[in-house]
C-alpha cells in the first residue's frame, strides 16, 4: 500500500476522530473553567456603537499591523492568510470538490472556485474566445473574471509559500539571537508542516518532480497525509486559532469593550 492509499483510506477516519476528540477536550476546558461572577454596571452605548466595536475588534489588530508592523502584515497576514492559505484552502477548485464530496452543501461555493493555474487563467471572460465545451458554461469562465490572473492556485500557493518561509526564517534570529521567549519550538514545527503541505500540493498539481503516475500518487499522498497531520494536531497546536481562539478572543474583546462603554 502506498502513501496515497494510506492517507486517503486508512488515515482519514482516525484523523477526524482525533480532531473531534481534541476539539471536545479543548472546548470542555473552557466550559469547566467558566466562572460566573458579579458584573459591573455596564456603560450605556448605542447599538450602532456596539456594531462598530464588534467590527473594530476583528479589524484593529490588522490596522495596527499595517501601521506599526508592516513586515508582519505583509508576510503573516497578507501573504500567509488573506492571499495564501485561506483562499487556497477554501476556494481552490480541487479543494472545493474535496470539501463538497464530504460535505455536499459546500458545493454552493462551486461558482466561486479558483482555477489551479495561471496558464488557464487567460481563458476567462476577458479572453477573446470561449473554449468549446460540452458544459453549459466554459469551465474556466470563472466569476473572478480578469482577477483570475492573480486568483489562481499557482500564484496563491507561491504567495503562501513565500509568506510561510519568511515567517519561518524570521523566527530563527528571534529564537536564537534575540532569545525571545514567545518564539516556541512548536512555531517551527507548525510552519514546517504548513510548508510541507503547500509545497507537496503545488508539486502534485504540477506533476512534479516527474509525470509518472507513481510519483504523482506519492506526491498527492504526501500532500493529503501532511494535511491530515495538521488536522489531527490542530486542536493541540497554534492552528486552533483558526477554528476557535481567534473567534472567541475577538468576541470576548468586543463584549469587554461594550461593557466598558468604549
Amino acid at each position, binding site marked *: 500500500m502506498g502513501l496515497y492509499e494510506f492517507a486517503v483510506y486508512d488515515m482519514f477516519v482516525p484523523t477526524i476522530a482525533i480532531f473531534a476528540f481534541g476539539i471536545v477536550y479543548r472546548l470542555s476546558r473552557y466550559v469547566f473553567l467558566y466562572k460566573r461572577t458579579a458584573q459591573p454596571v455596564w456603560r450605556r452605548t448605542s447599538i450602532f456603537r456596539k456594531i462598530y466595536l464588534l467590527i473594530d475588534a476583528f479589524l484593529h489588530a490588522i490596522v495596527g499591523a499595517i501601521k506599526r508592523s508592516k513586515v508582519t502584515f505583509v508576510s503573516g497576514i497578507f501573504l500567509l492568510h488573506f492571499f495564501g492559505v485561506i483562499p487556497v484552502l477554501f476556494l481552490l477548485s480541487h479543494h472545493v470538490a474535496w470539501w463538497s464530496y464530504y460535505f455536499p452543501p459546500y458545493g454552493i461555493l462551486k461558482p466561486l472556485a479558483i482555477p489551479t493555474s495561471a496558464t488557464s487563467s487567460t481563458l476567462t471572460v476577458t479572453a477573446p474566445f470561449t473554449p468549446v465545451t460540452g458544459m453549459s458554461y466554459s469551465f474556466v469562465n470563472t466569476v473572478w473574471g480578469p482577477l483570475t490572473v492573480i486568483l489562481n492556485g499557482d500564484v496563491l500557493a507561491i504567495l503562501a509559500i513565500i509568506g510561510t518561509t519568511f515567517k519561518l526564517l524570521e523566527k530563527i534570529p528571534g529564537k536564537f539571537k534575540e532569545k525571545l521567549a*514567545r518564539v516556541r519550538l512548536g512555531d517551527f514545527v507548525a510552519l514546517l508542516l504548513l510548508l510541507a503541505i503547500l509545497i507537496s500540493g503545488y508539486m502534485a498539481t504540477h506533476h512534479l518532480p516527474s509525470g509518472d503516475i507513481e510519483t504523482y500518487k506519492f506526491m498527492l499522498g504526501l500532500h493529503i497525509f501532511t494535511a491530515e497531520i495538521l488536522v489531527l494536531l490542530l486542536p493541540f497546536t497554534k492552528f486552533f486559532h483558526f477554528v476557535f481562539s481567534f473567534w472567541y*478572543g475577538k468576541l470576548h474583546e468586543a463584549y469587554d469593550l461594550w461593557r466598558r462603554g468604549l
Partner: protein
Amino acid sequence: MIEGIEKAIDIVLSDIDSVTLHFLESCVSCGICAPFCPYTVAGPIYEPADKAEEMRYIYRKRMTIAGKVLGPLVGAKYPKDEEDLDRMVNMAYRCVNCRYCYQTCAFGIYSGKLVIMLRRILDKVGRTPSTLKYLQSIELSDSVLINDRVRERWEGILEEAKKAIGKDLPLDREGADVVYLPWLAEAMLTPEVIVSTIKILDMVGENWTMPSEPLGFEPPMGVIVGDRESERKVFRRINSYMAKVGGKRALISHGGTPYMEMRFEMPFVMNERPPYDVVHVTEYLAELYEGGRIKIRREENGKVTWHDPCKLARGSGVVEQPRILVKASTTDYEDLPRGTGMYSHCCGGGTGIALITCDGRKLIEEFTGEKIEPAEWEKRFCPPLEEDYKKAIKQKIDEISEINANIVVTGCSTCIYNINKGATIYERDFQAVHIVQYLLDKIEVT
C-alpha cells in the same frame, strides 16, 4: 526548587477562568502587540507576549498534559533558582497594565493580566519590591495615616481645603449624595487635586462628604503587588464606609488604578456589585456642564491637550467627557498625535512602576519620614529598571512635544507625576495638570 513556589503557583492557578485560559493558550507569537507596549523600548525580550510567556511556562507545567510529560521541550517549566526569579521579576515589573497589548492583539489576549499573575506568584515567594510592600502595609494598617508626619501632611491638605471654602469640611457625614474618596497617593503626588475637588464640590453646592482620612493608599495596592486577599480587604473597607455614610455615589479624582478597579474590577474580585455608583471627577463635571449647572470660561493660554490615562480611557471608557470639558476651556486644543481613547499611549509609569524607581523610593521616604530598606535582590533589579522607566516615559514626552503642547491636562495623579518627571528629565517646557486643578478658576456656577 524555590521554597514555597509550588504552593504559590497552585494558589494563583486555582483562580483561572475561561477567559484567562484563552489568554494563556492562544498566543501564536505573531508579535503584532509588540510595538504598542510602552516597555518594548527596553528590549524585545520585554514585548508583551515575551513577558506573558513566563506565566505560560508555569501554566503549561502545572495544567497541561504535554507540559507535564514533555516539560521544557514544549515550553513548560517552573522557576528553579535565583536567576529564574530575577528574570521573572524583571518581566513582572516591565508592565504598567495599560491594556494596550489587549487592544492590539490579533486574538484579544491581555498579556498584562498574565503579568499580574506573575506578580502574584512572586509576591508569595517574597519578590515584591520593598517600596510596594511598604505601601501595601500602609494600606492594610487600621489607619493609613501611619505616623505623625503623614497625619500632619493629610491634615494640612484638609486645613487648606477648609480655608479655600471658608467653612468646615463635611467629613464623614451621613446621607450625602456624593462621597468624595481621595487617596493617600494623591496626598503625596498631587495634594492640590484634593483641595481643588473639594472647592468645586462646594462651589456647585453639592450635598457631599468625604472620609476624615483616606481609606487606602492607592487602592487596591493588592492588585499592584499581586495579593488578592489584600485587594478584598481594602474593598471591604471602602464598601463598609460607603454603607456607613449611606453614599449612593463614590466620586474619585485618581483616574488610575483606584477608579478602574472600583468601577470595573471590584465586582469580579468581590463577586458582588457594590450598591453605589463609581464616578470619575471628569464624568461628574461633564454631567454638570451638560446639565447647565456650570459654565466654563474659554481662555487663550497656549496649546492644551488631553492625555488619556490608560485605566480611565481604555480601561473604563471615559474618553468623551474630558474632551468636552477641556475643549470648552481653550481656544487652542489638539489631541495627542499617536492615538487617543482606546488607542492612547501610556505614560509609562503606572501600576507601581514609578514608585519602585530610586526617585519613587525617595519620594515615599520623604513623604512618610521612614526609611525603606531594599532587599538584596533589588540592588540588581533597580538600576536597569530605572533606565527602562526613563525610556518608557520618553515616548509620551516625545508625543506631547510633537504637537508643541504647553499644558497637558489629564485625570490621574500617576500620569501627572510621570509626565512632569519626564518633562524635567528631557528638558521640555510643558506641564501636566489634573483636570480639576486646570478647570478650577475657569468654572462659573450658573
